[in-house]
């Protein structure tokens, strides 16, 4: 059974600081997704990583994928309060098109002034 683990589960950081969220998964897959969720809201897609070594950046967020290590990272640069949310990584199947996603438990990010 595929397991997806995120750490840390909770992250409190000051504005302007950098930090990384880690996502480890237990089986081979080339598909890694990052989502953001605000309290009481749905999931907003941030990144889809489809190959080993893939790196994507949007604003202050950068995601990377190392399929050999079964590890993805979400790096936050110079955090701002608006980034406060819960971040989920999810792993897709190795074959076929968009299909069942297995989610991690989430990392709740709180950016303080």
């Amino acid at each position, binding site marked *: 059974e595929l397991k*997806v683990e995120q750490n840390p589960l909770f992250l409190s950081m000051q504005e302007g600081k950098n930090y990384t969220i880690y996502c480890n998964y237990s089986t081979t897959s080339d598909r890694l997704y990052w989502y953001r969720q605000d309290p009481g809201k749905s*999931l907003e897609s941030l990144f889809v990583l489809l190959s080993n070594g893939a790196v994507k950046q949007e604003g202050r967020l950068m995601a990377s994928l190392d399929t050999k290590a079964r590890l993805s990272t979400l790096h936050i640069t110079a955090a701002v309060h608006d980034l406060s949310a819960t971040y989920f990584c*999810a792993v897709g199947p190795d074959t076929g098109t968009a299909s069942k996603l297995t*989610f991690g438990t*989430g990392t709740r990010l709180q950016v303080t002034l």
Partner: protein
Amino acid sequence: DAGVTQSPTHLIKTRGQQVTLRCSPKSGHDTVSWYQQALGQGPQFIFQYYEEEERQRGNFPDRFSGHQFPNYSSELNVNALLLGDSALYLCASSHRNLGSYEQYFGPGTRLTVT
């Protein structure tokens, strides 16, 4: 371009009752997946529908069933509700052959079982 829509937004039911949740996929999408998200947890895959048939299923009991209509919209039915069924139910749509692997989530239905 309408995104994924779900109805109702909120729902309160009593133990033992039955509930039906509805989802309309993003325009151009033909595949609908349903997820259950308990408070403080990540979403858990319930099942996926394509061409009006259930194609994949997660570890959920038979009390959870679904349907997909010719216009690609979908329903999730839950029978004999338990307190533990209280959760946010999310619908995600995608296109089976588009190759983008993207799944777009709807706003969700918050189900409370009392």
